[in-house]
């Protein structure tokens, strides 16, 4: 096997040094009643060429872009990814390094994360951002737990039902064995979260919204955060499409206390939903309550600038069970990808790209309306929107599928009352003719 360099002769020499007669004898401390019986039932090994062939057979059974145009986002977005990213992240000095516990030989990773924290904080309008969390959904769960830590005696959190349904499921999973109460807030006919009932909730630690929300609707975060603050709670916002902040007011300037979400849009492939990137930031006064790693700037003994992991006293290897979270990794290489992407766009590029995405969906919406379809919510949207075709869309959906277009996501799975209503997504990757092709099929 090409990854195992030991020759038979070397194995013999090494066994002699350790005083064992065979490789099996190395495991003399393993009792008989714990031992694996027989061989592991696995397929016979494939060499490199056979493995490639196997994977190409699997690939053929997939319905994917670019063969198919998939006009679905729902938390996993299709954007163009520049060739530079693939080339740069395959640099194995980044890829094959561990967590930067030895900063002198990990300055590349550390400066890269410091830059990621900076870009994330600037993008979201937050004072600080951490080195990332697993994904958007776990980031939201961690944000709510953080809100509960800050709220101390307050034991209730509320989340909008217009948050991605999977994210809400993850939050529910995280909070299930705890003493905390999780409430869900309805959304109104405009597709925005209805916060009118907040004041009646006792012991409310935090309220979370998503903007743009699962329906693509841009929440009025300024009004929302003051309503949440009036109810004595922390305002949390999450997102699945960070590109929106190239165009929208950032959550920080709207008064949001903790902002988190999925960063996959920034240069990561969809890859069946992962790995993505849980982006996470907050106001400065809450820094020490924040979960996850942080990189900070310092100097070496010669006074030269350098970077280290810092504020580890929040973390589990020092605080054990009192840590702010059990998380002890970050999405490492994905933070570099996101920063490569954001820095390749630059301030003017991210504005232009966000505006382009906005133009595409607005065009899509207006053409559908011309054909007699309804856009379910009339609030402004970004990249995604819900269509009510007012008749059975399924036959058209199937015709489009035959033409290689996956036209939207039926919301019935997530919101039973919205069965037959479709969530669409159009980014810069959707050409006008793809949009026109869908519109043409809508009778």
């Amino acid at each position: 096997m090409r990854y195992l360099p030991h020759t038979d002769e070397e194995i013999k020499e090494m066994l002699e040094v350790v005083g064992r007669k065979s490789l099996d004898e190395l495991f003399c401390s393993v009792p008989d009643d714990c031992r694996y019986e027989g061989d592991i039932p696995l397929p016979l090994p494939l060499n490199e060429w056979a493995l490639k062939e196997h994977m190409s057979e699997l690939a053929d059974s997939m319905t994917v872009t670019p063969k198919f145009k998939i006009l679905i986002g729902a938390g996993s977005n299709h954007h163009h990814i520049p060739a530079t990213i693939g080339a740069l992240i395959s640099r194995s000095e980044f890829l094959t390094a561990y967590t930067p516990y030895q900063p002198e030989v990990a300055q590349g990773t550390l400066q890269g994360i410091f830059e990621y924290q900076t870009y994330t904080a600037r993008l979201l309008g937050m004072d600080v951002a951490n080195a990332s969390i697993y994904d958007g959904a776990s980031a939201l769960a961690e944000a709510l737990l953080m809100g509960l830590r800050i709220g101390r005696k307050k034991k209730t959190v509320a989340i909008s039902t217009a948050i991605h349904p999977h994210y809400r499921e993850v939050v529910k999973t995280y909070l299930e064995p705890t003493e905390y109460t999780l409430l869900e807030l309805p959304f109104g006919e405009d597709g925005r979260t209805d916060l009118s009932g907040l004041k009646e909730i006792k012991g409310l630690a935090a309220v979370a919204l998503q903007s743009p929300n699962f329906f693509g609707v841009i929440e009025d975060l300024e009004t929302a955060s003051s309503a949440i603050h009036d109810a004595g709670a922390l305002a949390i916002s999450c997102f699945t499409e960070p590109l929106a902040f190239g165009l929208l007011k950032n959550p920080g300037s709207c008064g949001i206390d903790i902002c988190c979400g999925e960063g996959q849009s920034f240069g990561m492939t969809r890859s069946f939903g992962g790995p993505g990137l849980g982006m996470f930031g907050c106001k400065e006064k809450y820094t020490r309550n924040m979960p996850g790693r942080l990189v900070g700037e310092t100097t070496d003994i010669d006074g030269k600038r350098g970077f280290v992991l810092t504020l580890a006293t929040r973390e589990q290897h020092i605080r054990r069970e009192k840590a702010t979270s059990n998380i002890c990794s970050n999405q490492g290489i994905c933070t570099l990808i996101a920063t490569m992407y954001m820095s390749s766009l630059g301030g003017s590029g991210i504005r232009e790209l966000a505006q382009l995405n906005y133009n595409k969906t607005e065009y899509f919406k207006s053409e559908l309306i011309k054909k007699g379809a309804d856009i379910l919510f009339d609030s402004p949207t970004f990249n995604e929107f819900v269509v009510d075709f007012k008749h059975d869309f399924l036959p058209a959906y199937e015709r489009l599928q035959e033409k290689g277009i996956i036209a939207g996501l039926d919301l019935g799975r997530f919101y039973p009352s919205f069965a037959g209503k479709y969530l669409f997504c159009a980014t810069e990757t959707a050409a006008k003719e793809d949009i026109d092709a869908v519109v043409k099929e809508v009778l």
Partner: protein
Amino acid sequence: MTKIKTPGISGLILDEPLLWEKGKKGRRGMSIPVNDVPEAVLEETLQGQGPDFPDLSEVDVVRHYTRLSQWNFGVDTGMYPLGSCTMKYNPKINETMAATPEITSAHPMLDDEYSQGTLKIMYDLQHYLAAITGLPGVSLQPAAGAHGELTGMLIFAAYHKSHGSKRTKILIPDTAHGTNPASAALCGYKPVPVKSDSNGILNIQTVAELMDEECAGIMITNPNTLGLFETNIRKIADIVHSKGGLVYGDGANMNAVMGIIDAEKCGVDVMHLNLHKTFSTPHGGGGPGAGPVCVTEELTKFLPTPLAVKDGSSYRLKYDYPDSIGRVHGFHGNFGVLVRAYSYILSMGADNLKKVSQLAVLSAAYIKEQLKGTLPLAFNRPCMHECVFSDKLLHDDGVSTLDLAKRLIDNGYHPPTIYFPLVVPGAIMIEPTETECKEDIDQFIGVIKKIVQEAKENPELLHQAPTIAKVRRLDETKAARNPCLRG
């Protein structure tokens, strides 16, 4: 002193500013498609200024990250004997497989019929991991080891709830990973520390005294963080089970025991695997990893949903598990990482995986044997995939474990794990893995011996180290006291 040749020599390193210290307004590092639809205007009250990012050209970005990468040390650079982290070689073909265009562009929310290839990978990988551990139920969702631990603890809580009880404590040995107590605390369990005995392993009597019906169970890392096999695990599991508790096996050290132990026979009920350790996926400077969870038949119904199942010749996602703890990830876990582990298992097969464990243990035992006269062993017992030394002798020379670690950098090695596990003073924890060849291991042993001699003859060399890395020792106190977390 004989001259020891080391890989660490100095070379030209280029400095590079922070991203926002470069650039010029109007540059662009990426193509943006032309606008082929009418310009639309978002209502003013929702519009912001856009983020304050510098404008950079493509060359600016490429050179920036190329230079940064050169300040890093990775497994591809050299030996990375970081104990408990299994820094083995990360095969290149796995990267190519994960980059298959049909996989990278797979959308996670399409109907099953569109995703047969990715579902087959999930289904097969679930089965391979079940075969390797001996535990039949597998969820691939957890995104990292600690995420797997949390999933395991959620399963503990769901299991006890289904038996009409809510337990409040959990036993955690002093040799456990630092994340164990934090993961358990998230589920409302108060960790009860269990002292390991004078042999560095768990004592049956100690566990019997601590285990009661308030305890949800025990979290055992096996082999433990001293690199020792917990020989009493089966009897400890029986005690825990007899009080209605469950046994969590932290599988972070699975690289030592593939094809050697059967977790179910050890009495383990729930176990996570670190695919970024045992199954060779790259650590990426801190992530992404993957921490699938394997459970007994009885606990399968509590696993996160959905699971991949096979109906006839086609694959689908099954959501219908009413007792499931629910989702722990937005989609299907770090799928790209799963593909790499899948490729690794297919490349290796059963015999090679067992050989991996045998050679990982052989390499560690060899280092232990060769260095036990140079550094004091924490426990002189048969080690598994890693060996742990203490700093007792170094102390006599006025140098610390940290000094030794930093001096290794100047010699071209990534330092071992230091000051962990906490039960060993000034611990030096060495895990060579199976992918380091004998010459490199011998050279490493030679360098450690040289440094220990330097500690006696010229300790300043150690105190001042590293001298030829990108930066010298960094002021961590300053970083924590006046945090500068962004520019």
